[in-house]
């Protein structure tokens, strides 16, 4: 194809050509083109299909408000649906396809919807498709879903990377049009820290699209100079291809920078960066968006907004056709006629809804004052327009201007309400702006170039003064106050054919009227019923017209009907960018235990526990499944000795004269009476009396305790203890610091554990049962002087110790313990074996202490002291929480010992039907006990303490199974605890 629609001049670089493909057709454009301008240059006016009726559509705007020209950019895993052709910078080899059609773009089978349009009026689907009932999911909905939607995801992992960042500034200037540049220049020259962000790849805004002059310079040339000056200032950061998409609390803005989208390849760099900009003040200079007028068949390819057509002509040097008509209700539309004429394009007609003399003299153009375009002809491209006076005028392009709407979007992000300005026929920012923000230029209703420039400088100066910065250099060049008269004119009543209000979602004037007839009279109800403004453009070009028509129908004024406010984001933001680096393995950090390396080298499988990776079991040669490994680890530990890295348990260093009293407050049981050199099991409640955490706390010195928490709750317990310390006991001398990562801690469990440790602990420490009995603790040294802490505690129920060394020695310590243990056939064991042994002993973990469990439920009700102030003791005594028939933790074993218990089974009394009403409790944890040779379980059973020996049914309808189980003590092994005291 050749560039049949290319005009002379423009801001494209004609020194080289760029080749690209659209729907597999090769075309050419120039650097500086967008895909939209390049397609137009090549005469490709048909670009896409509409959402509902699959109407042929072409480029309608020249910016991010584009409703029609959405394409799929790139291919394979890089395919990016719904991309606005107006925002795609042309690059060599660009590949794009049209979307939302079945069959080719030119012959879309779903265009049949257009013929059925009478049956597809607003909300039709709420009134039908209800019979027969089952057909909704099976028939109607799949048809609707496959026809709806727009572009397609590749369904492959996004191959690009994304990054995020944080920026700080005194003044954020949003938009680099005339007002934004004036604001940034003023602030930059005054020495403030400035960020200037603009969504375009060429700063300048409308200056690049117009022929207006500043101080005798072409607008775009002045913008270039301004940008050059700003770029040289250290205190100014210029960010083009950067959209400020959201205004959040306290001056934080959400910002998307597109780094490599304009390149063929991202070369391993992040494709986009999501910036959080912390601004002390902001100037919103986002300009204005033109809006169309609704008339019959106003959606054809070749019909563009007038300002957009002017931008294409002036900036990109293209026009959609050779004979252009202009339809306007304002002065600005005339400039399109004048600028295109100046570029050598024939202007056939200027239709002005205002009955006024011609504003400008456009040679060859006929002027129709007080008339309107009523209809158009030409399915795939414009052929002619018909005026309200009946006249038919041939043309192959139509520029429409219904006036301009200030881009107030960001002013609404904190629920600010725009206000109606009658003289502009538009909403302007209200008084309830996000704190710190001011609005300047067209975004604020300052519609002329001179006004925008001066307002940009003045508003920036005021913001600087507010910050205590003396503004200087705010003088801006002379510019024009061009005529901007506008008369409200929303839709052409004489039109008989459908007139589109929302192009993308196919909402017509009739739909708006129908919604009003049916009582959907709030603008919010209108939106929801008709889907107006809900498409990817969020109604940037359609909302106001819809509102105006609703107002007219309801006999109200526009301000009476109100407006909908805008919510973030200003333009859509890729989910990949919002996620940044946090995906795949980098979703969250990994925490590794100190012995991770040794563990990895010795056959461990790993399990994720919170952010930790822990050894689950160690596979030995010849072991066929995980059970082989776990059974071996359990048996060997109980027979001789096993070693497990338990570093993940939270460790909190508690020091201070009031440390004991503080722990009395935190724990349900008492710690102030604990002797130095001793450890105690502690139960922690929430204030609502429910068990929160448990663990052991050791008294290492008079004023020094060391607490352990569960792995899962380490951070939460610390937080809560700080709350108690600072808010409830502010006068206690107590200090907390986490040492979880500082100590590598190992459980050494089993009858040979003392023998093993004797080989490692330096000889001057006596760890005999007398000197170091059950629940003793103390400082020792290991391997010739390395400091360590030793605790005589047991989770397995065996004679056991936990030994902690500084984490740097953890990996070495694991190796040493295993080496020293060789003569005892010591085994390293993982979390599974740990779990089996704790179930054999009836100890609780997260499955039991799940935040719903009382101390009473686990048989520890008496541990909750009622003799002191402590968290949770009062509310733990509420009547429903201490009922005799509440569920109790008990043990279970299958009557048929060969059966495997199922965690999550519910208990039903024998003879009762299995139903929720007869539910007696549930199984929390199960394991195969290699010591007992059968499956065992822990669970909560109603009044379980009184039901020992009873046979109940453990039902698991989800597995379609049930079995009889016997209620037993939860202490399956060594119930008297003789081993751990040995």
């Amino acid at each position, binding site marked *: 194809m050749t560039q049949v629609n290319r005009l002379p001049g423009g801001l494209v670089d004609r020194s080289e050509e760029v080749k690209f493909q659209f729907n597999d057709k090769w075309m050419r454009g120039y650097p500086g083109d967008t895909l939209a301008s390049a397609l137009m240059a090549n005469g490709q006016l048909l670009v896409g299909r509409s959402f509902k009726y699959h109407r042929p559509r072409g480029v309608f705007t020249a910016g991010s408000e584009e409703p029609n020209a959405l394409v799929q950019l790139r291919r394979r895993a890089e395919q990016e649906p719904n991309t606005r052709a107006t925002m795609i910078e042309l690059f060599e080899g660009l590949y794009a396809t049209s979307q939302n059609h079945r069959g080719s773009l030119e012959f879309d089978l779903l265009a049949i919807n257009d013929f059925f349009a*009478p049956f597809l009026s607003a909300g039709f689907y709420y009134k*039908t498709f*209800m019979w027969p009932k089952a057909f909704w999911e099976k028939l109607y909905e799949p048809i609707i879903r496959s026809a709806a939607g727009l572009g397609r995801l590749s369904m492959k992992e996004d191959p690009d990377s994304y990054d995020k960042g944080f920026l700080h500034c005194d003044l954020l200037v949003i938009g680099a049009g005339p007002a934004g540049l004036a604001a940034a220049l003023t602030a930059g020259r005054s020495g403030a820290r400035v960020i200037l962000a603009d969504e375009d790849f060429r700063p300048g805004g409308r200056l690049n699209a117009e022929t207006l002059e500043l101080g005798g310079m072409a607008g775009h040339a002045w913008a270039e100079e301004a940008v050059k000056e700003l770029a040289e200032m250290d205190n100014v950061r210029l960010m083009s291809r950067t959209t400020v998409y959201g205004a959040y609390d306290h001056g934080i803005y959400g910002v998307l920078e597109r780094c490599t989208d304009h390149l063929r390849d991202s070369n391993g760099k992040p494709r986009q960066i*999501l910036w959080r900009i912390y601004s002390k003040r902001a100037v919103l200079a986002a300009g204005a968006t033109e809006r169309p007028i609704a008339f019959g068949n106003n959606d054809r390819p070749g019909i563009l907004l007038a300002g957009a057509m002017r931008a294409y002509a002036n900036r990109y040097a293209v026009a959609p056709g050779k004979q252009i008509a202009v339809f306007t209700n304002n002065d600005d539309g005339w400039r399109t006629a004048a600028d295109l004429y100046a570029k050598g394009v024939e202007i056939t007609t200027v239709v002005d809804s205002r009955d006024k003399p011609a504003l400008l003299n456009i040679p060859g153009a006929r002027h129709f004052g007080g008339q309107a375009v009523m209809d158009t002809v030409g399915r795939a491209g414009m052929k002619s327009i018909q005026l309200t006076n009946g006249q038919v005028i041939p043309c192959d392009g139509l520029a429409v201007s219904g006036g301009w709407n200030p881009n107030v979007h960001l002013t609404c992000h904190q629920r600010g309400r725009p206000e109606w300005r009658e003289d502009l026929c538009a909403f302007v920012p209200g008084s309830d702006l996000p704190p710190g923000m001011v609005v300047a230029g067209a975004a604020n209703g300052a519609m002329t170039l001179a006004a925008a420039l001066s307002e940009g400088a003045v508003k920036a100066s005021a913001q600087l003064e507010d910050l205590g910065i003396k503004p200087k250099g705010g003088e801006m060049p002379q510019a024009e106050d061009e005529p901007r008269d506008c008369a409200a004119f929303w839709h052409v009543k004489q039109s008989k054919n459908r007139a589109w209000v929302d192009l993308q979602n196919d909402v017509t004037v009739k739909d708006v009227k129908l919604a009003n007839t049916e009582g959907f009279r709030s603008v919010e109800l209108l939106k929801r019923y008709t889907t107006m403004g809900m498409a990817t453009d969020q109604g940037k070009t359609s909302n106001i017209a819809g509102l105006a028509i609703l107002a007219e129908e309801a006999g109200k004024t526009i301000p009476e009907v109100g407006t909908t406010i805008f919510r973030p*984001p200003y333009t*859509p933001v890729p989910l*990949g960018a919002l996620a940044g680096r946090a995906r795949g393995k980098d979703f969250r950090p990994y925490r590794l235990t100190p012995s991770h390396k040794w563990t990895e080298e010795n056959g461990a499988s790993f399990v994720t526990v919170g952010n930790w990776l822990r050894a689950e079991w160690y596979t030995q040669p010849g072991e066929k499944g995980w059970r082989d490994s776990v059974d071996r680890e359990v048996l060997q530990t109980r027979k001789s000795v096993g070693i497990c890295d338990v570093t993940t348990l939270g460790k909190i260093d508690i020091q201070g004269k009031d440390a004991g009293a503080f722990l009395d407050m935190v724990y349900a049981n008492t710690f102030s009476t604990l002797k130095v050199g001793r450890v105690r099991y502690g139960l922690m409640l929430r204030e609502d009396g*429910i068990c929160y955490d448990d663990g052991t706390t050791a008294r290492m010195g008079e004023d020094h305790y060391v607490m352990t928490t569960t792995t899962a709750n380490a951070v939460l317990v610390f937080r809560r203890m700080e709350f108690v310390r600072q808010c409830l006991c502010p006068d206690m001398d107590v200090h907390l610091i986490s040492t979880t990562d500082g100590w590598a801690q190992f459980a050494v469990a089993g009858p040979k554990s003392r023998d093993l440790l004797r080989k490692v602990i330096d000889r001057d420490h006596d760890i005999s049962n007398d000197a170091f009995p059950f629940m003793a603790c103390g400082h020792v040294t290991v391997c010739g002087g390395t400091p360590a802490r030793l605790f005589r505690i047991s989770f397995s129920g065996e004679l056991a110790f936990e030994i902690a060394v500084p984490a740097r020695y953890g990996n070495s310590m694991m190796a040493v313990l295993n080496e020293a243990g060789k003569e005892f056939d010591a085994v390293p064991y993982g979390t599974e074996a740990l779990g089996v042994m704790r179930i054999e002993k009836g100890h609780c973990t997260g499955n039991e202490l799940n935040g719903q469990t009382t101390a009473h439920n686990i048989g520890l009700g008496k541990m909750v002291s009622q003799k002191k102030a402590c968290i949770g003791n009062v509310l733990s005594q509420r009547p429903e929480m201490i009922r005799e028939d509440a569920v109790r933790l008990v043990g279970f074993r299958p009557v048929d010992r060969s059966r495997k218990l199922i965690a999550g089974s519910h208990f039903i009394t024998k003879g009762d039907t299995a139903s929720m009403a007869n*539910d007696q409790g549930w199984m929390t944890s199960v394991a195969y006990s290699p010591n007992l040779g059968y499956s065992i379980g822990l669970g909560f059973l109603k009044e379980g303490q009184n039901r020992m020996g009873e046979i109940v049914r453990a039902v698991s309808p989800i597995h379609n199974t049930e079995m009889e189980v016997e209620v037993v003590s939860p202490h399956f092994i060594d119930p008297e605890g003789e081993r751990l005291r040995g």
Partner: protein
Amino acid sequence: MRYSGFRVLKEGLTGNKGWTKAWREPEPRPDYDIVIIGGGGHGLSTAFYLAKEFGITNVAVLEKGWLGSGNIGRNTTIIRSNYMLPGNEPFYEFSMKLWENLEQETNYNSMVSQRSILNLYHTDGQRDAYVRRANAMLLAGADAELADAKQLRQELPFLDYDNARFPIKGGLYQRRGGTARHDAVAWGYARGADSRGVDIIQNCEVTGFQIENGTCTGVETSRGAIRAKKVAMCVAGSSGRVAAMAGMRLPIESHVLQAFVSEGLKPVLPGVITFGAGHFYVSQSDKGGLVFGGDIDGYNSYAQRGNLPVVEDVCEGGMAIMPMIGRARLLRSWGGVMDMSMDGSPFIDKTHIDGLYFNGGWCYGGFKATPASGFCYAHLLAKDEPHPTATQMRLDRFMTGNMIDEKGSGNQPNLH
């Protein structure tokens, strides 16, 4: 006017000129048997069931804004009954059964789509908890199904099974779960109630209660005083504010929950999917948008908007389980005010003031409860005794210690 495919055809052929108002716009009358405060989903469904099931039609629904402007107008449209506790599960299953006949009952297509809901699990502990929950669901007459990673890989090949930080081990399905077109639910109930004689009064804000000798006899509104034999609060996020007018402090905090929708896409997701190791759940609307959300922002708020950290957290969760959505774009986000209760479960109860009733505390899960909430509230209002599925949803349960705490997070609303 009765809606049907035939009517759509007929109107289509005659220029769509015969459609009439979906509901009346009546002026408030001076007194009613029952005044319902709040024209959101729950208020409208209460009115509908009062009329349909209990024959009480001298009812007004007072709505401060436009009907359906509360959380029914902005939510992520999920319906499900996959609860665990006896205080909840029968209620939500009752709701599910009402959903299944909703369209025929209201003569309005609210697009109840039982496309399934899947909760992924990533650890053995989570699996055990899901087995317990699945069994509770089955024991309560709901449906449930467990799927292992192998099955999921076949059904949902686009999830990240091989490179995940928290590997997907399986999931709990409720095939009867799914989504519904949220606005249409409100409109269907509104039409159904209106056609049975209920007055739905929009733009009518309650400004106070008339309380005489411990008995509530009516309300003050922006459109005058209205007397009523019974007054029923049903105002979700505004519960605290409205109850304060009656001098009540509630076990509720108002928090902001953000929700999100992407640009329209051709069909990608079969049903609802929730991530078990992060804050993310998602479904796809009939129009093609991915509708998703995650955690509440976490601080008390009536601002109806949230902040960036949660937006990012949610999208991180999304990319973590389905990295193929990276090039889909977030189109719109919004924030709703959630009546977060102290145990994450709701209240349908009388208050200590005679004639004044309370329905609230739905947290971020009120949408799925819309039918049963209305039905059970209507039951309570009509008979002065709780519906059998809602007996635990009492305001005094924190005094007795009979909490309904599904998550086990305790008395901290932002953790539920």
